[in-house]
């Protein structure tokens, strides 16, 4: 083991994290069955240490681990990767605590615990990789471990199909990433990222654009951009909820990390059309993602599609940052990229929280279908409160964290007026309108998600008997819920961490973050464009509530409240079946956007005495998944067609195969053997 220029002390702390995780893995293997879940306590401890280290920016090392005589794995901390390590540490901490109490979907607790921790370690490795090979190995380990997490649970055809979709998509993406990275490495003649960075600027525009396109497609697949998002709504619901929280909270962010790393850090984001591409993909992903989320009745698929939306929002920020950067406006680029990073940590927090909340509900109600929930707020008040916090935060409503990042993104997009080209001015501001629409659809979506599952009357027997989650799960959800508020009221905490990343374009961010920890902290956007003071906004809201309560109490006194049944138009009794369902709630939107949804409905009525006395009515409605139908199905068919043609080569005869080998060898010798 070698380290250059760093003291042993700098290595002790990150190694201690690794040691704690390894202890946790051993514990999950040796502990008796009932106690396996306590090994998550060790993972939580490791993640807690890592959180403290990364938050205090104490993670700084450069280390080569000799894996074999041929190569060593090169990791280094600092910069962009450290910020993502912070995101990972915080989410890993809360999800590990949560997992101590989580029992649903844990068919193989031992294996799942090991996979869970390997998943976390592999993500650290991705964010800390300092050369091409190390990155690709870590990336592949991350993909494989998450594949096993998706398929480890149940053994039916559905999970195999899901696993196949995930494996194919993720490996297609990886192939694109490998292409991009090997192109870079070949140009640099070195696998080190530092060497790559210095030679990339000398390459031809075409070469650089190809590197960008492959990286964007590959990392975009992992992030879940439309139309490469199809694996997300399949894989997230199939994984156990603690794994989904990590996948949606952190793993898809590794795609964002990759895009930022290649396009901004390595390539310098100096070509305008890259920014355009990212911006347009971001706008499309955010709107389509949330419109599809709105139609889902499966709570986890809903959250998965909402992740597509949020990735789109992050890309809106990154795309505008890249545009600013290409037009030579570093201050504005810094603002936009900071906004994107802010939304990255925010989305990790509230999506992690919401996936944990959905897992809690699934554990007690036993279904993912929100039409079978209802009234849970009375049986599970704390879970409901945490889920509501996550919902308000993800809808970008003040005073929570989602609002701050979306405000910054709005600022970046409206500041697009400063770009020199008419097209980008219009496009960026219209993207601002798209973001506004995304926010409104998200509000509808989460009014539905929370309202149908937690409010109203119980829609099923199991919802009626639901019980509050055990303490560790509640504690695991409390961490991100509190952070959603803290990062909303005190944006400086995050902005300082973003400034620490030291991306060349983020140099200007410290002005934005100036004096950010005080109570009158103001976030200013460049050029005096606008300013936001979250503490003041928070005080305005809290103060208004306080003044209102006191005034009412003093002037009128307590109100007498009489309990009664709801207005039922004289029918006599309102039953849970008369409530608005999730399907009914979204019906107007389904009708208005029918061009997109292409909904089909199927109504079957059986009569006792036709046509007056209806015995049974079944209503089935579904939307057409356009990407699956018109993009992926033709591709799958084409692949199948080609595969059948290639089959002709496979006779099954060993002699023929040896002949192939010989033929190939001869051709190779003829071409390169001179």
């Amino acid at each position, binding site marked *: 083991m070698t380290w250059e220029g760093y003291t042993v002390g700098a290595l002790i702390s990150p190694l201690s994290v690794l040691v704690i995780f390894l202890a946790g893995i051993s514990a999950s293997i040796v502990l008796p069955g009932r106690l396996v879940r306590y090994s998550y306590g060790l993972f939580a401890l490791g993640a807690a240490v890592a959180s403290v280290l990364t938050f205090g920016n104490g993670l700084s090392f450069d280390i080569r681990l000799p894996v074999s005589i041929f190569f060593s794995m090169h990791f280094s901390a600092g910069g962009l990767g450290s910020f993502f390590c912070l995101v990972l540490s915080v989410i890993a901490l809360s999800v590990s605590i949560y997992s101590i109490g989580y029992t649903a979907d844990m068919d193989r607790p031992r294996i799942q615990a090991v996979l869970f921790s390997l998943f976390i370690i592999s993500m650290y490795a991705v964010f800390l990789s300092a050369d091409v090979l190390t990155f690709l190995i870590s990336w592949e380990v991350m993909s494989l471990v998450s594949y096993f997490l998706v398929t480890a649970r149940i053994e039916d055809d559905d999970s195999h199909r899901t696993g196949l979709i995930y494996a194919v998509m993720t490996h297609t993406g990886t192939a694109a990433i490998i292409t991009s990275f090997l192109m870079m490495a070949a140009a640099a003649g070195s696998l080190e990222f530092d060497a790559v960075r210095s030679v990339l600027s000398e390459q031809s525009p075409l070469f650089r654009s190809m590197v960008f396109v492959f990286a964007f497609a590959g990392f975009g697949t992992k992030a879940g951009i439309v139309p490469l998002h199809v694996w997300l709504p399949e894989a997230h619901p199939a994984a156990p909820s603690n794994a989904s929280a990590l996948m949606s909270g952190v793993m898809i962010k590794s795609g964002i990390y990759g895009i930022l790393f290649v396009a901004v850090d390595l390539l310098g984001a100096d070509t305008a059309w890259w920014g355009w591409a990212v911006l347009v993909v971001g706008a499309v992903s955010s709107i389509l993602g949330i419109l599809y989320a709105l139609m889902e009745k499966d709570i986890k698929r809903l959250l998965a599609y909402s992740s597509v939306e949020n990735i789109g929002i992050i890309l809106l920020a990154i795309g505008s940052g890249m545009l600013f950067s290409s037009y030579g406006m570093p201050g504005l680029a810094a603002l936009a990229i900071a906004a994107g990073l802010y939304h990255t940590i925010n989305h990790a927090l509230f999506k992690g929280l919401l996936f944990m909340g959905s897992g809690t509900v699934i554990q007690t109600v036993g279904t993912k279908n929100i039409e079978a929930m209802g*009234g849970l*707020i009375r049986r599970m008040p704390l879970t409901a409160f945490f889920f509501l916090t996550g919902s*308000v935060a993800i*809808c970008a*409503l*003040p005073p929570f964290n989602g*609002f701050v990042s*979306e*405000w910054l993104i709005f*600022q970046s997009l*409206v500041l697009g*007026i400063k770009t020199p080209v008419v097209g980008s001015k*219009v496009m960026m*501001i*219209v993207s*601002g*309108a*798209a973001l*506004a*629409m995304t926010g*409104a*659809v998200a*509000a*509808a979506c989460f*009014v539905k998600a*929370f*309202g149908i599952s937690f*409010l*109203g*009357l119980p829609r099923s027997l199991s919802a009626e008997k639901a019980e509050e989650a055990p303490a560790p799960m509640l504690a695991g959800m409390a961490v991100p819920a509190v952070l959603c508020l803290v990062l909303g009221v005190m944006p400086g905490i995050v902005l300082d961490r973003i400034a620490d990343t030291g991306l060349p374009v983020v140099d200007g961010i410290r002005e934005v973050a100036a004096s950010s920890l005080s109570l*009158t902290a103001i976030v*200013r956007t460049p*050029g005096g*464009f*606008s*300013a*936001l*003071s979250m503490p*003041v*906004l928070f005080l305005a*809201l809290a*103060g*208004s*509530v306080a003044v*209102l*309560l006191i005034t009412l109490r003093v002037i*009128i006194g307590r*109100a*007498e409240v009489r*309990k*009664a*049944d*709801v207005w039922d138009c004289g029918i006599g009794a309102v039953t849970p079946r*008369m*409530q*608005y369902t999730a399907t*009914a*709630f979204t019906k107007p*939107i389904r009708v*208005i956007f029918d061009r997109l949804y292409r909904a089909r409905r199927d109504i079957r009525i059986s009569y006792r005495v036709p046509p007056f006395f209806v015995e049974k009515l079944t209503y089935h409605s579904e939307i057409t998944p356009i990407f699956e139908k018109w993009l992926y199905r033709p591709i799958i068919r084409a692949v199948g067609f080609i595969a059948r043609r290639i089959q002709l080569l496979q006779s099954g005869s060993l002699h023929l195969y040896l002949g192939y080998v010989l033929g190939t060898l001869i051709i190779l010798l003829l071409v390169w053997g001179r």
Partner: protein
Amino acid sequence: METVIAAGQAVLLVLCAPLLQGMIKKIKALCQGRRGFGILQPYRDLHRLFIKDMVVARSASWIFHAAPYIVFASTVAAALFVPVIINRGGALGLGDIIVIVYTLALGKFFTALAGLDTGTAFGGEGSSREMTVGLLVEPMMMLAVFTAAVAAGSTNVALISVPKSFFLSPANVLAFVAFYIAVIAETGRIPVDNPDTHLELTMIHEGMILEYSGRYLALIEWSHWIKQILLLTLAADLFFPYGIAAGAEGIVFASGAWILKMLLLGTALALTESSRVKLRFFKLPALLGGAFVLSLLSLVTFIVMGK
């Protein structure tokens, strides 16, 4: 001092909101050939509701109880950021237009949740329609606002509300028309919603709050009226900011100017409502989509023509 001015103007909006509502109702009554109530009637309604007892559904959770306070408080908090008579230039980081819109959205979010809370079909129906209208209104309203913002070089209302030549330009007029349609939709008026109905086929906002009574209903109605006067003031600030005082001097003239603008815009709302029919719900995308095109034209006009 900034805080006092902000609080004072918010209080002004809160206190004048029922008056504007009374005036709009009076004009509507006159248009329909009725004498109508006195314009102080909304104050009497509020008083009556405030002293009444409440009937609350057995199935209601704490969301139902909290929503009226959150709605009222978020509307008042938004009002704190709007320049009404005096414009001090947006110190303290107050007055960003996106903050105002999203603070109002917080109230809408909780009203919609409250509609689903009691488990009645009317509430769910109202929530569903409100959120649908919301997602059609939001993009075009923000686009109209952005046009005003880029013209002023800031998203801060205090900086937008400074008189300059832009205000008589085509871009500004187009953006104003779009914003006006957004105000109609956000305040639940004809042709988008009918504020006077309790017919389940047509109600949107009324459906969500059907289960409310007494004090809670008073709070929700009042905050709805505050939102109305706030949005009209905002329309005046963004698209016609003449007459706003920059300090304590000129406050009399500024008050007169604001009252005049509210009278004009309120009359416009009343006349629009009296002269139009309510649109079928699924015709709304045409109206609101049309308004989106107006905002887009406004933006493009501004960028291409520079004014």
